[in-house]
């Protein structure tokens, strides 16, 4: 099992977390709303999970669930008034929300530790390892070193989380809810005239996106075992946006692909990582000019499915 390299698993793990973030912005975008607050919602999930597990010894899954739900709840609170806003107003207001949240994280020292952040968050791989050992299982018995086992279990947990979230929202897009989202995105007034409760669905989509960002944040906290306000800046919000814009915002697999690809790229080509943000900037403009729907769109996926030899790798 020597080929199982924790470094590669680590990179893959970040790809998966970013993929969940990509899905989170996709959901709000699928109703035609642009939220730049996803980094903020991510910080809510991350801090909630981190503080619950470090200060109140709450089990990790419960902390992650609580963090996601809290982010979702804040999403509803922010979403309802924001519905009076559309387009650019919403984008700027959510951007402002993220900045205010970051100021709170920095200043509310008694709770968040300020700029120092929250350290020594239980890392899920290590927790799984110690649980496995308590249960009498040793990774050596299947030929794995400890750190291989830790990274592998983190990767598998994240893979499961990503697949579940992607599958859920993929399925959602084929239901009544998903069709309502599409209708609202195409023409809000027409959707309203057709009897779709636009407000309800917009808040729903907004809080679903917030919940998923919080989920990704909580997973992030338990993967890196450290969070600080510097992780959730305006640049993070833009990065999440780039995932969706590059990958494609018309099909759920678009942002997933965008996140995976753009996380891997600087890692694979470390030489160009210096130009990462310059590249992001150019990419945003070029995509808007030449392919506003992103790399992956439904038409491409149809062609992809029709071709018989589609088994990649």
């Amino acid at each position, binding site marked *: 099992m020597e080929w199982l390299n924790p470094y590669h698993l680590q990179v893959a793990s970040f790809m998966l977390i970013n993929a969940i973030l990509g899905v989170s912005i996709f959901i709000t975008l699928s109703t035609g709303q642009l939220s730049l607050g996803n980094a903020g919602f991510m910080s809510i999930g991350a801090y909630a999970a981190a503080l619950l597990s470090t200060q109140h010894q709450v089990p990790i899954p419960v902390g992650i669930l609580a963090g996601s739900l809290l982010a979702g709840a804040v999403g509803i609170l922010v979403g309802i008034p924001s519905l009076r806003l559309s387009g650019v107003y919403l984008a700027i207001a959510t951007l402002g929300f993220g900045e205010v949240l970051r100021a709170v994280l920095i200043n509310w020292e008694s709770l968040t530790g300020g700029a120092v952040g929250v350290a020594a968050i239980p890392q899920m791989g290590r927790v799984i390892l110690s649980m496995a050992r308590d249960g009498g299982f040793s990774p050596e018995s299947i030929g794995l070193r400890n750190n291989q086992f830790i990274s592998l279990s983190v990767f598998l947990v994240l893979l499961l989380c990503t*697949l579940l979230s992607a599958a859920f929202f993929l399925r959602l897009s084929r239901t009544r809810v998903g069709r309502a989202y599409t209708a609202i995105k195409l023409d809000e007034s027409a959707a309203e005239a057709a009897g779709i409760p636009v407000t309800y669905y917009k808040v729903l989509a907004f809080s679903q996106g917030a919940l998923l960002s919080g989920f990704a944040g909580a997973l992030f906290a338990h993967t890196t075992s*450290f969070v600080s306000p510097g992780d959730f800046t305006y640049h993070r919000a833009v990065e999440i946006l780039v995932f969706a814009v590059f990958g494609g915002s018309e099909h759920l697999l678009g942002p997933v692909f965008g996140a995976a690809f753009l996380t891997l790229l600087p890692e694979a080509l470390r030489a160009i990582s210096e130009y990462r943000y310059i590249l992001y900037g150019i990419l945003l403009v070029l995509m808007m000019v030449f392919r506003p729907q992103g790399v992956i769109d439904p038409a491409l996926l149809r062609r992809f499915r029709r071709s018989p030899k589609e088994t990649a790798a």
Partner: protein
Amino acid sequence: MRRSVRGIAVVACALFAFVFMGAEKAKPAAKPAAEPIRAKIGVISIITGQGAAYGEAITNGIKLARDEVNAKGEVLVDLKIEDSSGKQEQALAAAQKLINSEQVVAIIGPTLSNEMMVAGPEANASGVPIMGTSTTAKGITQIGKYVFRNALPESQAIPASIGKAVKKHNIRKVALLYGNDDVFTKSGFDTMKEVSGKLKLNILTIETFQKGQADYKAQLTKIASLKPDAVFCSALYNEGGVILAQARKMGLKVPFVGGNGFNSPKVIEIAKDAAEGLTVATPWFGESNDPKVKGFVAKYEKAYGKKPDQFAAQAYDAFHIMANALKAAGIADRAKLRDSLAATKNFQGVLGKFSFDAERDVVMSPIVLIVKGGKFTIFN
């Protein structure tokens, strides 16, 4: 539904393919100790992004030390330098790469305390000694027994500078000013507050600023109106220089006292005359007459065309400490190296006499400097 599952499977397979494509065969970690000792040491540093200036100084210092050590021939070190961009995720990925792909015997870095909070636990869990050269926040070496640092924390630097300044200027009332969105400046401030309490100083006000701010006039006007005897300022040189310049311009002439973060020739470059009277504490004094320091400064200037700062000096010493420990261990083995590192006592470097305490933290005595005539001089 079946179609979507298929789609996901395809993407997942593609992900796997990416992940495993580059997997290389791991090499044995250590070789038996035949002369000389050959070792692979990893470096995590900021090569790109906002903190690249620190990373450049650090890698320069390390490379200079490596050349010296390799020239001696007792220990032959192969450096593997990885970029973290100042980001936790990338620092973690770099640590994983060095530990597992490169199979290094030890890691020097990362640059920021935040990054160490993420990379440290990973190295510790994998049993790889990791030594920060510029990570000054609290709780770094408490991560675990494989985590070291040779960077003087602000909690040791600041009491020295404040102590001397208070005595000399007879300071009773102070104003505190610090960057609240940075770990380094925040923990420096915590120490300032503590020390002020111990010395029974009257804290008139506590003001904050954020990284990269351009306008400090509101805070400084408020501080000036309270008429303090001195301003204790926890800042990095970039913001610190601007603060000094704007303070002097508006007529706030009282002494400014800082910690190690303020100690850089750049402060004088940015603030010019306004830097006069700035008091800092640091283990690094580039104008010192110590032949070791002189030799280092000369070599560094020759190699890189500029004077070394504290980041370069700390990294330079860190590498020598590491090389000495390797020699003492007699073998490039992670656990043995850890033990001999922890036993480092009275190492004589360009930063003076250095030892690790029981918690692998720094034991050294800072010197207090004051800016006079456009350069740092010994405070007396």
